[in-house]
């Protein structure tokens, strides 16, 4: 396993903490009725998100999904415009037109997030194909869940990426549940990674709670992709502590064993990584506390920015449908 240097490891920890505190803040705002629509939190999944994103170069591409507040943060995006977007403010990354499920920050290679399960998979293949045709050496990381691996998209995308040896890394965030349906109830194979065999590409299962493990796997896969050897399917075993989405829908449904949740929380990625940093002599308790404080301040500042930002001009709803507007057409 290639070990990232101490500075990189500290940055990994910071980004994991950012995602955790960001989503906790989003939950608080949602519970107070401040967020339109629905939100899908990834609390518990921070290690695989950050491990994968930080294994890429800054200008590599990344495609997310509906549970994707963490993905752009993992890729290095600033939190203020992301939070402003979730609140529907004019300063949001998408100007308030996308919201929680469509956060995109193209400045850090985040090519957007689709709330249609699985639909980002072929888009990621296309981004990678485009990168290869342009010869810029970039790869595309594609996040998707275990649920998406049962969409036709998964199979079409893996087949095309493999047939064409496209520089893409498929990262399955297997949190065991599609909404309330356990993956084991809708698939006869326990692991998504085994499906790689059908497409002639490597399939690897990694501990999604350990950012270093995910980092190493994605780094190898990205290098392989850059070398022209094609795609890799990596399955990170992880868990989301919250339900599929926030709100009262799940209050009276018991689809998960509380012991299962507790077992995963016992290996929470944040203390796990903090323990590693201490053990490796990279961060002592004082430094970890400083990081905690700094991230809390960052999130507070992002929140202040988002809350104080103006609402979009209502006229903006009628703009931006086309990139090339057509003179004289009011819908253009």
């Amino acid at each position, binding site marked *: 396993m290639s070990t990232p240097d101490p500075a990189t490891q500290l940055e990994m920890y910071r980004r994991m903490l950012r995602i955790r505190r960001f989503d906790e803040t989003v939950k608080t705002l949602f519970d107070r009725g401040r967020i339109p629509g629905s939100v899908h939190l990834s609390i518990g999944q921070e290690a695989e998100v950050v491990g994968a994103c930080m294994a890429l170069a800054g200008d590599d*591409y990344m*495609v997310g999904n509906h549970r994707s507040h963490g993905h752009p943060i993992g890729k290095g995006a600033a939190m203020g415009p992301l939070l402003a977007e979730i609140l529907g403010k004019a300063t*949001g*990354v*998408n*100007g*308030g*037109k*996308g919201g929680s499920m*469509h956060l*995109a*920050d*193209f400045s850090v290679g985040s*090519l*957007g997030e*689709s709330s*249609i399960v699985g*639909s980002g*998979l*072929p*888009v*990621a*293949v*296309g*981004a*990678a*194909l*485009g*990168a290869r*045709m*342009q010869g810029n050496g*970039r790869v*595309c990381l594609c996040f998707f869940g275990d649920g998406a691996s049962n969409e*036709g*998209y998964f199979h*079409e*995308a893996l*087949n*095309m990426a493999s*047939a*064409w040896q496209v520089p893409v890394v498929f990262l399955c965030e297997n949190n065991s549940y599609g909404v309330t349906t356990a993956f084991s109830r809708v698939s006869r194979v326990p692991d998504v990674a085994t499906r790689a065999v059908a497409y002639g590409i490597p399939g690897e299962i990694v501990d999604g709670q350990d950012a270093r493990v995910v980092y190493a796997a994605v780094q190898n896969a990205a290098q392989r992709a850059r070398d022209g050897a094609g795609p890799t399917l990596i399955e990170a075993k992880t868990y989301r502590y919250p339900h599929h989405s926030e709100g009262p829908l799940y209050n009276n449904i018991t689809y998960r064993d509380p012991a299962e949740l507790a077992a995963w929380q016992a290996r929470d990625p944040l203390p796990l990584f903090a323990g590693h940093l201490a053990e490796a002599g990279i961060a002592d308790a004082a430094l970890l506390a400083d990081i905690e404080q700094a991230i809390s301040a960052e999130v507070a500042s992002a929140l202040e920015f988002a809350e104080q930002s103006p609402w979009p001009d209502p006229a903006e709803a009628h703009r*931006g*449908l*086309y*990139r*090339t507007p*057509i003179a*004289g*057409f009011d*819908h*253009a």
Partner: protein
Amino acid sequence: MRELTFLEAIREAQEQEMARDERVFILGEDVSFNVYGSTGGLAERFGLDRVRDTPISESGFTGVAIGAALVGMRPIVDFTIASFMYLAMDQLVSIAAKTAYMYGGQAHVPAVFRAALFYNGGLAAQHSDRNYAMFMQVPGLKIAVPSTPHDAKGLLKSAIRDDDPVLMFEDGALWGSRGEVPEDDYLIPFGQAAVRREGSDLTIVAIGSRVREALAAADTLAKQGISVEVIDPRTLVPLGRATILASVAKTGRALVVDVGHRSCGVAGEILATIAEDGFWSLRAPLKRLTAPDMQIPFSPALEKGFYPDTAQIVDAALALVQD
């Protein structure tokens, strides 16, 4: 001037654009062997990377085109048969059409989706769709339906250079038709309807191959002293409303002819536009001739009569003018 067929004009547009801009590439099923006749010689000239045969994965390769467009390429997707677009519906509707808006202008999808319309050919219900009207319900897509080889080349070149997703529907009834096509580079702007024939008694707005039928009908009607103006919108999104309304203001009568289905169709949309903004110039009720709201049968004996032809147009026009 030299003449080309409709298909040759499309091939030439693609070849010229690929030569002009290395970001342009074609992907679709069986494109390198030129099975459908619009990519002849392109694989030989530009290589299999840029004339890319795909697996039979319509939603997948549509998503691939969108992803490539997001990072700066300009793909042309060849669906070969418009009915296959349904397999890619999610990518067309939820991704291609929504990306520029949903991401607040951070990105756009400069991709062209070519779809051939095969009907009246005994291909039965699943290969005979004339489905452009369905996509008019999707904000964010631009839609072209050329009726001449000249326009096919000029509209396709405009589509390739456009920064938004464009669906280009190629009426199979026109594929073999010949017409004058300049060899040089020219663009036909979207949203400008063509007046194919000037007249004073009746406006006929016709889509795709029905322009030809409408012109034939106008010839027949002229012999009976009826002067028909024939309008070809060329693009349905944006729709050249001004040209249509100006024509109806002159003639006071309107008939729309389309091989698509009747309900919620192109003809209905154009007539609604006239009813809303041109009502006071009307001298007769509005009229549309379309395919019926039926599935397309296989037997030629059954499919016959499904699409409005010259005789039907003449009859409808006479009824309107004599009303």
